[in-house]
Every structure is written in structure tokens, then in C-alpha cells.
């Protein structure tokens, strides 16, 4: 909300700089977000008076003028400048706009592009010239370049031009929170300023000369929905001449960001920004049968609003009607059919109080953002309608030459009274942790228009004016006291039992996983959980969709982090980073049947997952090794390391699972038969959707499954004191024999002495026969009781070799 300092000064004496005022307003909750100085383009321009003129001796078209520009500081004599002027209309005695030396003239009328230029002391054909008498064009306020701008004779010589135009203003942008509709006007802000500055608000004095027929004899108002419209006040002004508003009114409206339209519309806007009461002006001659009816529309009815858009109404839309047709959407926007036009002479002014929630529903449904709806939906003051309409009528009489008809139509069947709220002083101090006395509280409340009455000891009854709809209960008064007392003055007490002695990083499983992955060289990413639904739907049946997405590419919640991970991969490859090791700890989302019990919202499930992604080269290329491309075993190693850390040996890998819609070469991770997650190579068609060309390996594991299993304390197993025996064995087997099967057989045959099996080579090709491969494994044997003899070791190895040979038709290629 824009508030003009000059405008504000109409209602309260401000002996304080705008900056200081801004600081004070902010300290009571009216946050001044920015301060803008207007009129800066007229720095170094003043009002001057032409004292004398004479013809330039060396140029026919030039005049040499002596111009008074007021008194110099510290001098009693007027400062007289000699200025050479080329305008035909220059004569002595004129009040003119003078640019002093150093002024930047907004537009150069001798330059086709009209570029600005800076004035200096110059000699024009031998005559000194110190400044410039400007045209409307040069000042940038009009298009007339044929002569100098002649100011009103009342203009004050020496005054700054900005001040003369009413442009020397400071405008605050104030962030008004939705609970303070009373502050959406200059009088509202003045009230707050008065409370802070201990000043007094002077409301505008309204004198209306009523000199035409009683309004009620001409017009009638019938409110058929008093709930939607608890009060409807109106005045009639006729004989109005629609014209542009006077300079000061235009400047006021411009300062708060409004575009001046004509005197009638401008007056209604001015009063809205003055009182906070939205007004609507109808062309009285266009109101059929001079009848106003306030009632709802019917479903499907059409109506064209002021902005020329046809709107479809519903039975819950409150409308203003004349005898035959709707003429405005109540509190939201007027209609084309009764709009003020250049030929309007009769103005019917509406000043009503509409139900906030009704206005909000209508404005929201129709998507209309109007200054009126903005105020009505936050809550206007039902007891201001008549003051506001009186003010507008008197202004119309004054600036548009209208005649105000006698009386006000005021349909207000049930007066809305000031609210009474009880306040306990002890409660205030307990909640705030303060020790404010009852009399100070009374004083503070009185400063914002809340009168108090002592009831019993420690209890006061507060009368809250109707312009403060936000104050409904005791806590609201506590807040008023707190902000007027000043947040700064309230002591910063510590919670009694705070101390920092236990500051430590909480070592939960997630932190462990995160540290482990960082240790493995992975970079954590945080990706958007919103994604394009058309991308994910082919891969997942239960996608959660957003009803009102910002855009199509953010129209669903991700069913898997793989999708958002691929976006990160795409982005990095685009920027030339093709070697990626990324991980994310995040959530996935899915729709589930309503009957299935979920943790929170029925029908929706959120799963915490950790996802790991690898692509590009295994190692960064270094000076004596070239990077090898990442394959599934690299990812498997990482996942295994993580699972080892968290799940110990409780997990199983399930191979050759073809269920995963996202990956191939998929390995599923289970824990006691429960699904934990998967790893695999992203399928080509999915990669294509993300325009990624390199192979990408991903894994997604459920955090809840990982964390549940984590043991708090790991039990220590002492290492054996006796040396291990190692034997290397190479078996030749058929190509399709799985290593896992061989390993299982080795473990089975090895018995309790076998402590480890390590695969150290896999070989295919010559000299091995076609269709064969060799697995070279290293077997570790160890006993907890004694050093194993050659014989004991050999016995185990023989058993292993025999067992593997029998089970797989394997042939021992070598042993050592």
C-alpha cells in the first residue's frame, strides 16, 4: 500500500522526517518496505518571475530576460538572473519555470530524440545566459514546445518547481498485513502515526451545500440481502461536468500509483485512499426507473464489467440492480452499462458495507483484483459509509460543479456496534513477561481509539471501534499493548533450562549415510519434488497430481527420485560435467487406496528415500590412469558399502528382477523378505526423455527400512590370534554359471574354517574354450583355536574343489 507523506500531512502535523516516521511505523507493525522520493527530476528548477525583457541585439528571435528567482539564502535581495530566451510568448510579469545552472532538462526540444541535457553558464550571440525558461515539453509534463510554460500568477517566486507542482513528495510502500484493513487508507495510517507520535488526527472538514431535491424523492434503494450488504448509503449529485481533475488531485492519485481518469472517478478513488471506504459512482441517468436493488444474481447470468469482460454469475454473487438489470458486482466492480462517461451529468454515489467473505468468494471466483474488493474482503468500517459519501459529494460540488441533493439514502437495518472485549492486566503481563501498569495500558489503548472502563480489580472492559475488525478477543488486545509498548522494551529472557553444554551433532542414521556417501566422494543434491506428470505417468500408475500447477512441467509429485535426479544429471552434462556421483535424501509420493492406513493423510503415502546416482568415468582421469566408465558393479559396490554400514549382513540382493519400470540390470534389495529398494541402469527410453545420452546408474533405498534395522550398539567380536591360510583357486565353468552360486557352494563346502571368499579375476576367451569362463577366487581359512596345519587346510580345499567341480562341472584351472 502506497502512502504519500504530503497526503498524510493533511490529517496530522508531522514534525518528523519521513525516514524517522517510517522507522516508527515499522516498529508498531506497519512495515515500511521502501521509501520513494518524488519530484527528483525537478531538482534545480524553481519558480521565477520575469522582471524585464529586451530584444537581443544580434538576433531577431531572441529575447534577453531578467528573471527573479527569489531570495538567495542569507540575502535580502532577490537573485536576478539574465536568461536569453527564444520563445515568442515571453513577456515581463510572467511566472515561469526556470532551470538553474546545473539543472538537467528532461527533454531537449532541439534534439530529435529529445535527450536530456545539463544547463551551464553560456554566451548566446554575445549575451550571457545563466539558466533557461522552460516549455512544457522540456519539463516532460506536456507536448507543447511552441512557447514557454506560463505558471499561475499565484505561484511563489523562488519555490522549487517540484513543490509548485505538488510533486515534492515522499511515498512509503507499507506492507499492510491482512489483519489491518483499517490501515489501507491515509486516515488509517494517520491514526497509527498519532498514537506513536502522541499527536491528533484532524479529519477533513466537510461542508455540503445541499441545493437540490431530496434524494429519496428521486431514487429508492431496496436491500434484499441484508446479510451480504448490511449497510447501503448513497448520495446524488447532478449538474456535474465531467473533466480532468485539478493538478493537486491528479498529483495525489499519481503519488499512490493511481492513474487519473476524470474528476468523478478520481474523487471516488481519492476518498477510498483517504477513508479506506470504497465508493462507486453510477451515471444516475442510466439507472433504470431510478431504482437500486441489492440482491443476488441467478446461476449462469452474464454481466459485462467495467473492464469490458463478460462475467458469468452464480446464485451466490451479490449484485447491484436497477429496475431491469444488474449494474454492478457488489463490492467488486461496476458494470459498463452504468459507467461514468464524458456526457454524464448525474452521479449516484454508492458507499456501502458489504460482507467481507461474500466479496472475497466472488472476487476470487471471478479472478478480479480491484482496490475495492481488496478492502471489502479484509473488512471496511460499517460506520464510515456516510462520512465518506459526504466527503465525495462535497468534492464533486467543488471541483465538478455539481449540485448535491438533499439528504442521504442510508439503508442500515441493524447497526453494527463497537465490540466490547475484556482485558486482564495480569494476563497481559504474564503472556508478555512484562510489568506494565493498568494506567499505561489504558493510555496505550486510548491512543488507538479503544476506550476502557475498569470493571473489577485487574479487569478492564475495552470498547473497540468498528474500524478494527481484527480485535475480537483478549489476545488481540494483548498484541496491541505489546506493539505500542514496543517489542524492544520487552526483556529478552532465556528459557529457564537452556544451556549449550550438550551441543553435539545428533548421530542419526541419516547423518551416517550422508557422511558415508560424502566419504565415498558423492555430492549431495536437493532437487525439486514437483515434476511433469506426462514424464512420470508412463512409469508409475499412482502419481499424485497437482490440481493447480504453476506450469505443466511442475504438475505432479515425483513417484521416484530417479526422475529429479535425471534432471540434475542432464543439467550437469549440459554444463560439461559428465562424471557425476550424486546422492539425495528426499521423499517420493504415491496415491494409495483410501482403505489402506497411512501415517497421515488418507489416500496418500510419502516415502523417505536415499538415492544414489553415478554416471561417466569411474575415476577422474589422472596423470597415469585414464578413467574407466562406470558400470553396474561400481554402483553395487557403493550400495553394498552403505548397506553394510547400516544393515550389517541382514540384506539380500535379488537378481534378474524385471519388475523395475525405470531400470535394467536391476538388482532388488530385500531385508528379511521386505523390499528395501533397487539399483540398476536407467532404461534407454527414460534417459531419452531427459535428453541424457550416457549410461546412468541409480539406486533408491527406503530410509524407513534402513533405519528401523539399525542396531544401537554393535557387539564386538575378537579377531583370532592365529594366522590365516590363503589359497587361490581358478575354476573353469560354463559361461552362464553365476558367481553367487559358486560362492554359495564354496561357503557350504568350506565349513566353519572358511572365513572369506574373494573373487579376484574373471576371465573369458583364449586359451579357454568357447562358452567357458574362469573365476579366480581367494579362499581364507582360519581357526579360532589353533594354527591350521598344511593337512587340515588341504582337506578343506579338497572338499571345496570337489564340491564346486561336481555341482557345476567345473574344472580346476590352477591352484596355489
Amino acid at each position, binding site marked *: 500500500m502506497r502512502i504519500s507523506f504530503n497526503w498524510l500531512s493533511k490529517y496530522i502535523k508531522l514534525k518528523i522526517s519521513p525516514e524517522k516516521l517510517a522507522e516508527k511505523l515499522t516498529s508498531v507493525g506497519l512495515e515500511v518496505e521502501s521509501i520513494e522520493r518524488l519530484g527528483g527530476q525537478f531538482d534545480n528548477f524553481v519558480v521565477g518571475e520575469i522582471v524585464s525583457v529586451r530584444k537581443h541585439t544580434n538576433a531577431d528571435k531572441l529575447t534577453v530576460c531578467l528573471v527573479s528567482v527569489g531570495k538567495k539564502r542569507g540575502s535580502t535581495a532577490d537573485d536576478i538572473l539574465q536568461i536569453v530566451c527564444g520563445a515568442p510568448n515571453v513577456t515581463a510579469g510572467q511566472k515561469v519555470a526556470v532551470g538553474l545552472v546545473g539543472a538537467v532538462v528532461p527533454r531537449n526540444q532541439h534534439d530529435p530524440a529529445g535527450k536530456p541535457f545539463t544547463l551551464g553558464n553560456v554566451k548566446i550571440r554575445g549575451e550571457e545566459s545563466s539558466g533557461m525558461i522552460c516549455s512544457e515539453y522540456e519539463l516532460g509534463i506536456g507536448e507543447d514546445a511552441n512557447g514557454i510554460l506560463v505558471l499561475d500568477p499565484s505561484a511563489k517566486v523562488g519555490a522549487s518547481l517540484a513543490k509548485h507542482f505538488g510533486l515534492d513528495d515522499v511515498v512509503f510502500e507499507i506492507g499492510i498485513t491482512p489483519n489491518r484493513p483499517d490501515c489501507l487508507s491515509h486516515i488509517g495510517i494517520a491514526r497509527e502515526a498519532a498514537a506513536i507520535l502522541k499527536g491528533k488526527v484532524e479529519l477533513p472538514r466537510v461542508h455540503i451545500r445541499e441545493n437540490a431535491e431530496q434524494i429519496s424523492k428521486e431514487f429508492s434503494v431496496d436491500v434484499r440481502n441484508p446479510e451480504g450488504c448490511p449497510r447501503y448509503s448513497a448520495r446524488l449529485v447532478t449538474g456535474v461536468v465531467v473533466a480532468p481533475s485539478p493538478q493537486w488531485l491528479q498529483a495525489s492519485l499519481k503519488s499512490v500509483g493511481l492513474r487519473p481518469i476524470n474528476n468523478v472517478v478520481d474523487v471516488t478513488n481519492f476518498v477510498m485512499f483517504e477513508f479506506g471506504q470504497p465508493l462507486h459512482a453510477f451515471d444516475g441517468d442510466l439507472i433504470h426507473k431510478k431504482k437500486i436493488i441489492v440482491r443476488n444474481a441467478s446461476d449462469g447470468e452474464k454481466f459485462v464489467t467495467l473492464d469490458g469482460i463478460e462475467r458469468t454469475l452464480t446464485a451466490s454473487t451479490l449484485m447491484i440492480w436497477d429496475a431491469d438489470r444488474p449494474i454492478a458486482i457488489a463490492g467488486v466492480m461496476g458494470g459498463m452499462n452504468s459507467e461514468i462517461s464524458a456526457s454524464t451529468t448525474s452521479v449516484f454515489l454508492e458507499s456501502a458495507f458489504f460482507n467481507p467473505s461474500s466479496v472475497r468468494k466472488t472476487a476470487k471466483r471471478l479472478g478480479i483484483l480491484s482496490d475495492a474488493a481488496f478492502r471489502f474482503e479484509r473488512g471496511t468500517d460499517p460506520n464510515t459509509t456516510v462520512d465518506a459519501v459526504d466527503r465525495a459529494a462535497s468534492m464533486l460540488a467543488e471541483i465538478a460543479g455539481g449540485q448535491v441533493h438533499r439528504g442521504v439514502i442510508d439503508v442500515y437495518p441493524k447497526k453494527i456496534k463497537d465490540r466490547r472485549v475484556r482485558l486482564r492486566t495480569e494476563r497481559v503481563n504474564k503472556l508478555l*513477561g512484562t510489568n506494565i501498569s493498568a494506567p499505561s495500558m489504558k493510555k496505550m489503548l486510548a491512543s488507538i481509539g479503544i476506550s476502557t472502563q475498569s470493571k473489577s480489580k485487574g479487569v478492564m472492559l475495552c470498547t473497540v471501534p468498528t474500524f478494527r475488525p481484527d480485535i475480537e478477543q483478549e489476545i488481540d488486545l*494483548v498484541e496491541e499493548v505489546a506493539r505500542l509498548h514496543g517489542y524492544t522494551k520487552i526483556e529478552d529472557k532465556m528459557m529457564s533450562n537452556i544451556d549449550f553444554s550438550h551441543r553435539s551433532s545428533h548421530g542419526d542414521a541419516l547423518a551416517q549415510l550422508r557422511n558415508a556417501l560424502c566419504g565415498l566422494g558423492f555430492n549431495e543434491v536437493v*532437487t525439486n519434488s514437483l515434476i511433469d506428470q506426462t514424464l512420470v505417468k508412463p512409469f508409475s500408475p499412482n502419481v499424485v497430481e497437482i490440481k493447480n500447477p504453476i506450469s505443466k512441467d511442475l504438475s505432479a509429485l515425483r513417484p521416484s527420485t530417479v526422475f529429479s535426479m535425471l534432471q540434475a544429471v542432464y543439467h550437469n552434462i549440459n554444463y560439461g560435467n559428465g562424471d557425476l556421483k550424486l546422492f539425495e535424501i528426499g521423499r517420493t509420493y504415491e496415491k494409495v487406496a483410501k482403505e489402506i492406513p497411512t501415517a497421515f493423510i488418507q489416500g*496418500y503415502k*510419502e516415502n523417505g528415500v536415499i538415492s544414489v546416482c553415478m554416471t561417466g568415468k569411474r575415476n577422474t582421469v589422472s596423470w*597415469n590412469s585414464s578413467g574407466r566408465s562406470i558400470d553396474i558393479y561400481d554402483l553395487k559396490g557403493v550400495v553394498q558399502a552403505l548397506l553394510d554400514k547400516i544393515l550389517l549382513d541382514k540384506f539380500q540382493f535379488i537378481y534378474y528382477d524385471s519388475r523395475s519400470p525405470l531400470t535394467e540390470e536391476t538388482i532388488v534389495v530385500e531385508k528379511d523378505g521386505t523390499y528395501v529398494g533397487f539399483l540398476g541402469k536407467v532404461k534407454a527410453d527414460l534417459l531419452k526423455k531427459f535428453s541424457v545420452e550416457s549410461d546412468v546408474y541409480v539406486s533408491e533405498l527406503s530410509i524407513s527400512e534402513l533405519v528401523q534395522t539399525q542396531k544401537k550398539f554393535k557387539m564386538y567380536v575378537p579377531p583370532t590370534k592365529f594366522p590365516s591360510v590363503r589359497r587361490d583357486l581358478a575354476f573353469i565353468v560354463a559361461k552362464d554359471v553365476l558367481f553367487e552360486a559358486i560362492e554359495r557352494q564354496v561357503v557350504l563346502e568350506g565349513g566353519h574354517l572358511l572365513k572369506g571368499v574373494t573373487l579376484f579375476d574373471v576371465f573369458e576367451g583364449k586359451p579357454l574354450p568357447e562358452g567357458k569362463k574362469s573365476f579366480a577366487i581367494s579362499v581364507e581359512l582360519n581357526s579360532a583355536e589353533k594354527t591350521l596345519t598344511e593337512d587340515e587346510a588341504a582337506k578343506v580345499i579338497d572338499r571345496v574343489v570337489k564340491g564346486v567341480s561336481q555341482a557345476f562341472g567345473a574344472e580346476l584351472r590352477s591352484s596355489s
Partner: protein
Amino acid sequence: MPDIADNLLHDIAELRGVAEHTASLIASADDLEKYRIEFLARKGSVGQLFDRLKSVPIESKPAIGKELNALRSFLDSLYLSAKEKIEKPGGEKGQFIDLTLPGRGEAIGTVHPITQTLQDIVSIFVSMGFGIVDGPEIEDDYHNFEALNFPPDHPARDMQDTFFIENDVLLRTHTSPVQIRVMKEQRPPVRVVVPGRVYRNEAISARSYCLFHQVEGLYVDKNVSFSELKGTLVAFAKEFYGSGLKYKFRPSFFPFTEPSLEMDITCFLCSGKGCRVCKHTGWLEVLGAGMVHPNVLKNVDYDPEEFTGFAFGIGVERTTILRHGISDIRLLFENDLRFLKQF
């Protein structure tokens, strides 16, 4: 002539000592060559001793010969080890080792700056005795708005543009609904923080994103006051931003707290002089807070006369951007390696 043999044995022992001492002083190739000529050359000391062997009686020759051979191989070994010593560091004959070649191995990974900020914030409150709780991102209207004192059709709802999934189901716009969930689960005292992801249906720009993270805090007990709220926030801010911090509180509005406040701290980039980041005000808004509204307490069946409490919310992205001088919030979600690796 036993004394010829004895003399020779004596000289062998003596030469061993002299050579050992000389070898220990070898520091250059020149020294090494001098050593070789003095002791090992054909006319050197060892050679001279071998010459004297001729005059040794036949019965003593084998023993003394053995001694001489031992002497020569000892002096040879001295020569070789001295040679190795002077040639090793960059000598022209040995292998040249360039210790300036880059080390091998991989860089340690990085934790995302959002996570780092979140962890830092949470750990401070944990050390103050706050527990950590979690809640759903897919929420219902009741928890996200209604129970938090946002009446239906109230303009306060405009403060938080919402993504809807169904009429009544939405993506939470703040972590505050977890307040309701926690309080419905337990009786006071309640002292928790809620870190989590929230969503706003706003156009994506350098300053705003469709989602962000918050850390919500809630403390409800008997006699919790506004004064303690301020104290707690100041304690947090000093721990997080540094103890020299300047701060101010100003009234604000949130439907679920009253009185409400916003906390500003002196801009740490310009020390309050005014810069682009603080929009030339010298202040940075860092969090919002307030006393839990009695209506909210009533909604969870707490008696507002018996219990009072405070709640606060800290924006993690905003905090991250400020403390790392990041100009565009979108960088946080692009996950560009060149960005991530800086943290």
C-alpha cells in the same frame, strides 16, 4: 716373522676405521671420487696392503688374506652406500622423482548447502532441549489452515499461495501444521523443532521458488512468555550468526500467533550500511514468530488459560542464500556440480 703379520692386521683394522670415517664425510661426487682413489684404486691404501701380503709368512697368509678381502668388500660397500646417498635426491644417474605431480585419489563429496544450514539450525535448538519431529508434505486443509486459525475465505490465506491435490488435500505451505499434529499427540510441555519441505504456488524467479525448507519451532508449557520467545530467538541468532550480532523485533501478523513478530538482524554483508542484499535498509529479515494463538491451543484441547507457548519459523533457503552470498535461489535446486563442490 710374526710381527709382519701382526703389523698388517693392525693396519687393516686401522684402515677400516679411517675409511669408515672418511666415507661418512662424503657429501659430493668429488668427495666420492677422492675416497675411491685413496682407498680403492689399484694404487690405493687397500692395494698397498694387498702388496704387503706377499711378505707375510705362508702359514699366516690365508687368515690375513681373508681379513683383507673382508676389508675390501667393506670399503666397497661404504663406497656404494655413499654413492647412493649423494645421488638419490635428484642426482643425474638415479630415478628422478617429481614430487610436484598431483596426488592420486578422489575428492571427498559434499553436503548440500541447504542440508548444512538445516543441520546447523536444528543442532542449536536440539542443544537447547528441543526434540525433532516430522510431518507429511501432503496435508489437509484442516491442519494447514483451519486449525491454525486461518478461517475459510479469509484474506490471510492469500499470504500463502497453495498447490491443491484435491479440494481438501494440498501441499503444505509451511511446517506449522506439524504443530497441530504434535499437540494433538501429547500434553504439554511440548518443545520441538520441525525441519521440512514446504510448497508455494508462486512464479519461480531469482528470489522465490515453488518449494523451500523451513525449521518450525514450538514450545508450550505453563508460563511461557513473549519475553522468553525473544530470549530464545536472540540466543539462537547469536549462536548461529555470531555473538556480536545486532537485532530488532517488529510486530507482524500470522493468523496462528498473537502477538506476532518478525526478527531483523544487521545485514552482515554491509554491517548495516545498506547494500543490495538488504535492499539498502541495513537490516535482514531472518525469521517470523509469535505467541501461539489461543484459538490454536483450543483447537488441540489445550486450555489457553493454563498453557501458553511460542512458535517460530525459519526459512532455510533464505538463510542459506544470505550466509553464502548466493544471488539466485534457483542455484540451490539446479545441483550444478560447480556449485555443489564449493560447499
